Structure formats: C-alpha cells, structure tokens
C-alpha cells in the first residue's frame, strides 16, 4: 500500500541485521535510535518475539541486547498488561552517550559510511528524476510541504522519509531495500546535524530544490543536489567528531 507521508527512518530501526556479532548489532541499532532521538522517551518497543522476527535473530539474542540496554539505563521493562520494554525518559539529552558513540567510531569509518550513503541517495535521486511522472512529482511536492522540519525529531524523521520517497520514485525495489537497511545502520548518526537549526533550514531548501529537479526530469541536478546535501550532513558530523577529539562537546 502506498502512503503519502512515510516515516521511514523509524521503521528502519527494526530492519533485518547482517550476520556477525548479532547481540552487539541489536544493542547498537537500538542504542543509536534512542540516544539520537529516533525512538522517543516512554515509547514502547515491539515485543521480544516481534523484534527477533524483524531483526532476523534468535529470541535469546534480542533478550541479551535488551539486557545491555537496561543496564545502560536506556530502556526499562514493565510487567503485566500493557507491559514490555519502554524507552527511558532522560533528564538530560543523551549527550554523553552521543559523545561516546562518536568518539568510538574511527573517522575513516564515518567518512566511508558517508560515501556509501551518498552513493545510494544520489542513485535514488537520479533515477527518481528520470522516472517520475507528473503525478509522482505532485505527490513528492505535497509530501515535502506536509513534512515537519521545525523540530529536531521532526527533521530527523522527515529527512529520512524524504530519502525513502526518492528511493520509491526510482521504481527500484532493491534501492528501497538498501536505503532502508542503510538508514537503519547510519541514518541516526548522519542526521545528528538536525540538532542545528541552520542545518535544518538548509536541508529543507536542498529538498525543495531536489523536488524541482525531479519535476523537471533533470537527473543531473537531482544527483548533484543530493551529493551536496549528504556532503553537508557528513561535514557537520565530522566537525562534531573533531570537537569531541579536541576535548569539547559534540554540540558546542
């Protein structure tokens, strides 16, 4: 079924995992989603069996992962009717955890993730511009007008949702699948810049320009604009990492 407003970044959190170190992957995926604000405080996670099915791992792996998150104070388990695992309310933003996560990743790996992410998004945008029909362009335009970029959480969801819209317009099921997987792995980090109001404004402008290029069936411009957009997000992330490594805070 088709939707007008697709909150893709959130669904991607629970997308399937690759093989190695599965408990660590469950932990990393959910930790990123919580500390970077994709999953909101007090939100209930899917059930353990549902998580196991959707991640494509054993139930015991999910339980181990959730135990790590409980120990880290990121989720709590409530018993009884309406129970389950809930995202903990944080008094302060999970700033120190973001700090630790960015510090723990090598610059070269962050850079490489950005290259790969950009390659997929560029391909989606280029194909979308080649293949969009006029009604497709109208829908994309309306989607962007209705999307919320004014809040941090809204901007994260909408930014990821826009990439997914482009992937859908590419008419490629594989590109859609790969984008979903990639957003799950790297989306929350890449969109860390959405905490910055100026970065949010610039992203909206960039998305508007991409819609224009798609409408004009201008594949080269759509590609170029998405290259620049992901490069800006990656630069923001690299700057945050550099601030941390110099002993400052990522959101200084």
């Amino acid at each position, binding site marked *: 079924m088709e939707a007008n407003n697709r909150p893709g970044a959130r669904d991607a959190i*629970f997308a399937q995992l690759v093989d190695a170190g599965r408990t660590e992957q469950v932990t990393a995926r959910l930790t990123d989603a919580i500390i970077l604000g994709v999953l909101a405080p007090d939100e209930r996670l899917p059930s353990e069996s549902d998580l196991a099915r959707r991640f494509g791992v054993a139930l015991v792996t999910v339980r181990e992962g959730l135990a790590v998150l409980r120990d880290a104070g990121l989720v709590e388990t409530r018993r009884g009717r309406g129970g389950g695992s809930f995202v903990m309310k944080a008094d302060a933003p999970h700033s120190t955890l973001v700090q630790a996560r960015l510090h723990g990743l090598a610059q070269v790996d962050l850079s490489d993730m950005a290259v790969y992410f950009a390659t997929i998004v560029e391909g989606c945008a280029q194909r979308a511009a080649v*293949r969009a*029909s*006029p009604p497709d362009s109208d829908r994309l335009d309306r989607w962007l007008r209705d999307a919320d970029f004014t809040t941090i959480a809204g901007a994260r969801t909408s930014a990821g949702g826009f990439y997914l819209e482009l992937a859908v317009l*590419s008419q490629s099921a594989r590109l859609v*699948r790969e984008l979903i*997987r990639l957003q799950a792995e790297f989306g929350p980090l890449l969109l860390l810049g959405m905490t910055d109001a100026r970065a949010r404004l610039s992203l909206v402008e960039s998305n508007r320009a991409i819609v224009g290029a798609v409408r004009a069936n201008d594949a080269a411009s759509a590609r170029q604009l998405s290259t620049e957009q992901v490069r800006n997000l990656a630069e923001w992330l690299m700057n945050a990492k550099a601030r941390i490594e110099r002993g400052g805070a990522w959101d200084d």
Partner: protein
Amino acid sequence: MTETMTDCAAAVGAFFAGAFAELDGWRDDLAGGDPTVRPADLDARVEGLARPALTDSSPLFVGAGFIAAPGYVRGRDIHFAWWLGPQGGNPLLGSSSSATRLDLATRAYADYVRNFRTLEWDQVPQSTNQTHVTGPYVDHLCTCEYIFTLTMPVRIGEDAPMVGVVGADVAVKRLEQVLLPLLLAADGPMLLLNDVGRIVVSTDPTRPVGDMLAGPGHPLTGYNRAACPGVDLVIASPAHPSQT
C-alpha cells in the same frame, strides 16, 4: 494493431478479471455483514477470506484484506484488516513462512493513517464507485516489492456510503509470468504500459521496466496500442520497429 497485441491485451484483462473475481466474492461476503460489527469479528471474517488466497501453492496475491472507512468499525478512525503472504527475507518484517497480519501499531504509522483519505487506492474507488488498480510502485510499507494494489469499494446497500475497500497486492513478477511468454511470441518489441505511461513488462531491452515510455509531456506517438479490457493498462508496440 496486430492480432498478437489484442491477444496480449485480452490476457492482461483476464489476469486482472481473475483477481477481481476473487475480491468480488469477498465484497459480497462483507457487504452482507452487520453494520454494528465488532472489530474482532470483522478481522476473523476477513482473515478467513484472505489467508487461503495468500498461502495456496501459487498465490496470486502478496497481501490482501479489507480497510474499513472511518467510523465503520466502532470507535476506530480507520481499521486495517490486512494480511501479508509468506515473506522471504523482507527487510522490514523479517522472514515468515505463513501469512501474517499487517501490524500498524508497531510500525509508527501515525502519519500514514492521517493521510489515508488522500491515497489513490482508497480515494478512486470512493469517488468512482469502481474497482481501481494503483501502480505499479515499490511498496516499502508491506512487502518491499514492485506491486499493483487492486481495490474494490464495499457498500452495504446500493446507495449507502462506502464502508471500506477490499483489496489485494499483486506482484509485477506474477503478471510477468503470465504475460511475458505471450509478448515474446510477437515479431517486434512489445510493452505493457500503465495509465501514466510507465513500462510494466517489456520485450525491448532498451525500454526497461520502471521507465516512462510516454506521459503528458511526451505523448505516445509512433506506437500501435491495444487497450486491456477492464483495466487502465495498454499494450504498445512500435508502428515501425526500425524507429525505436
């Protein structure tokens, strides 16, 4: 227009007619329903119709069910009774060997549901009181496949308002299985196009599936066409193959 083109168009028409015949039965079943229906009873009834169609040996549908209009199910804005066929390595849902219910609650669909009334698969049957085929499109919400969505309005009584749509998702590759051998039997390149001019099945390697052959901005000229009966799709073939 050649005889082959007419045959291909008829085969596409028959393919969709077969799918809609299945939905006809579901609509009749649900239209005979109790207007004060309880959600659990409605769900059980829809599951009884959808599950066998999703799990037979060569299922026509990858997803199917009933979507109730706002207010039809007590206390619900809209109500999805939708099942998905067995999924092999679905990136969103994981793998499953049997039919599973589409669970909106765990999938952050608030925005989706809010925009429900503007969706083509709902809006067109609502305004025309006719069956409708949406697509093809990549469905990233349910199956992550390239599909058509077929919908049919359900009314309890002839002039009554629509209480919802019965519907089914059909994979493009399922249609291709039936149509490609017929297209390949033709002498020249043959294409199946949807209502906006998007290529659905093609025997012309320079015109791949998903591309637009023609649209409002670049009309379909130089092609012979045969309309597929009962569905807004068209078989097209270059009038002079050398010009492709």
